[in-house]
């Protein structure tokens, strides 16, 4: 079953069109990666899906409902989560307050949600009253993930989760992503680290100059000479 279906998305910033008709889908239990060169429109695509950008034409369907151009806070209530690449935590709030922000929409089950997320990220539990602005980059990334998970989303959109992290931290983050996926959340992830992303994913899209150039099972793309040459630097 398709959790997410984006069809022929045309979108951009101001007067400049970045995506010229991109289609993407993600099924339950899948990890889908979007890779490609800088400026291809990868981040633009997930922002358009999440309602952060105006979609000029095309449609986005989530769990059967049409959500094109719906305001982000409404999309969250439908069960889609989004983790931005930068500025993805509230620096003056503590870890626990950051997580509580994620559960803004579910008043009653806050304690359960916190327990669940702390179980997934023990390092956050240890420092739950630390101010988020003082955390390391890796801890912030985990916090950002945790915040999005507080509402048990059916789908998680991740914008370059491994950006500016140490290799060890990148491993940790990808492990967590795998764990989250196994627990039942579909993942659509934009990644610069193409090899890693492909190794982790079920399927992948290669985006370049605002269009989907290649699509297919991650294994196939990993084996493809063209992909290896152009995007994996081999």
């Amino acid at each position, binding site marked *: 079953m398709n959790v997410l279906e984006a069809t022929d998305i045309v979108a951009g910033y101001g007067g400049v069109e970045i995506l010229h008709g991109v289609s993407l889908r993600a099924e339950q239990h899948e990890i889908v990666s979007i890779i490609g060169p800088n400026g291809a429109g990868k981040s633009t695509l997930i922002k358009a899906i999440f309602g952060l950008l105006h979609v000029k034409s095309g449609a986005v369907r989530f769990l059967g409902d049409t959500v094109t151009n719906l305001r982000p*806070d409404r999309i969250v209530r439908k069960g889609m989560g989004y983790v*931005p690449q930068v500025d993805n935590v*509230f*620096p003056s709030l503590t870890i626990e307050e950051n997580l509580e*922000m994620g559960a803004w929409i579910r008043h009653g089950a806050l304690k359960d949600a916190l327990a669940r997320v702390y179980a997934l990220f023990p390092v956050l539990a240890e420092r739950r009253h630390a101010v988020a602005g003082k955390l390391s980059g890796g801890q912030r990334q985990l916090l950002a993930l945790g915040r999005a998970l507080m509402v048990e989303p059916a789908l998680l959109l991740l914008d370059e989760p491994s950006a500016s992290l140490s290799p060890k931290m990148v491993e940790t983050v990808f492990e967590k992503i795998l764990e989250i996926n196994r627990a039942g959340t579909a993942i659509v992830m934009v990644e610069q680290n193409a090899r890693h992303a492909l190794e982790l994913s079920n399927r992948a899209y290669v985006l370049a100059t605002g269009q989907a150039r290649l699509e297919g099972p991650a294994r196939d793309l990993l084996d493809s000479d063209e992909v290896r040459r152009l995007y994996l630097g081999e």
Partner: protein
Amino acid sequence: MTAANTAAPRATWLDAMRSRYRDVYGAILLWAAFIGFGVWAAIAHSDEFTVGIVVGSIFALGAIGLTLIYGVLKFGHFAHGDAMLLTAYVVFFVLTGTVVGERGDVVSPLRMDRLPGASDQIWEFSFGYGFLLSIPVGCVIAFAVLQTLERFVYGPLRDRRVGIVILSIASLGIAISMRSVMLIIWGPGPRLYAPGIRDTTELPWGTRIVSDQIFIVAAALVVVAAIYLLLYRTAIGRAMRAMADNPDLALVSGINTDSVIRWTWLVAATLITIAGTLLALQSQLKPELGFTLLLPLFAATILGGIGSPQGALIGGLIVGITQEVAVTFDVLGAGYKFSVAFAILIIVLVVRPRGLFGSGA
């Protein structure tokens, strides 16, 4: 929120070092200066120091509202001073029903002080329970006015992403309009909530103050405590702080930003009304006071650090005390009080633009 936009695009490590030192040394300098001045003033000029605490409490309430609006709504609310006076006038109207007519005042029968015993003085204060009841009514009306302005002016302008300049000019236009409304309805003459001689009290350290001033400081403390509880112990307070940190992330996290904005104006309206009323209690009701408040309010907010309520509290007290004590110096006449606030503002912007508690991220 950075205060200084440097035009030079090339920031060398030297610049980074320099700005970090300036940051740290600036903070030390400011704290040392103000604590030193405060201690000396408390001893050498304890009368003025005490009045400074009263005035400073009022500034603090105003500055907290201003800093909240800065933090959540991302603009400088230049109508804050006039809003304080306007809401104080509204409380006056609720209490006394008085407006200006062609031949003297017109008094409406619908007013709080007609209730039995409403004007009977509580303890040594100059007012009765009627005054106290008028304040919440004033807050509600203030919220209605501010929320209307948000709906028709500030909101649409913000949605258009016009930038901080246009929003500030718009709020200045609103300030002028508010002042005109006060003049139209109540006239230019000064007014008081309760005319007559006021009781005074002697404090333990010898200063004699008007008894009302005890109420002012106590009320300010209660309000500050309530604000603290709201911001740090409730979900809506958390949401307000989150929006101040990062409005885009707040939206992305599922926060209903419209609701948070409405709450912010509610809190701001309450702060504005109480601060304005206390100010009018402390001195008098006069429409021109609104504009003159801008300097001390902004000085307090910037000194404390934009976005920081505790900074606004401390900033307000510092500005109040400094104002009152500084005019005891021979060089400065009493008319220079608000110029002192300006001097503080300049010092902060030069020495440590992000203020005492600002995030300066």
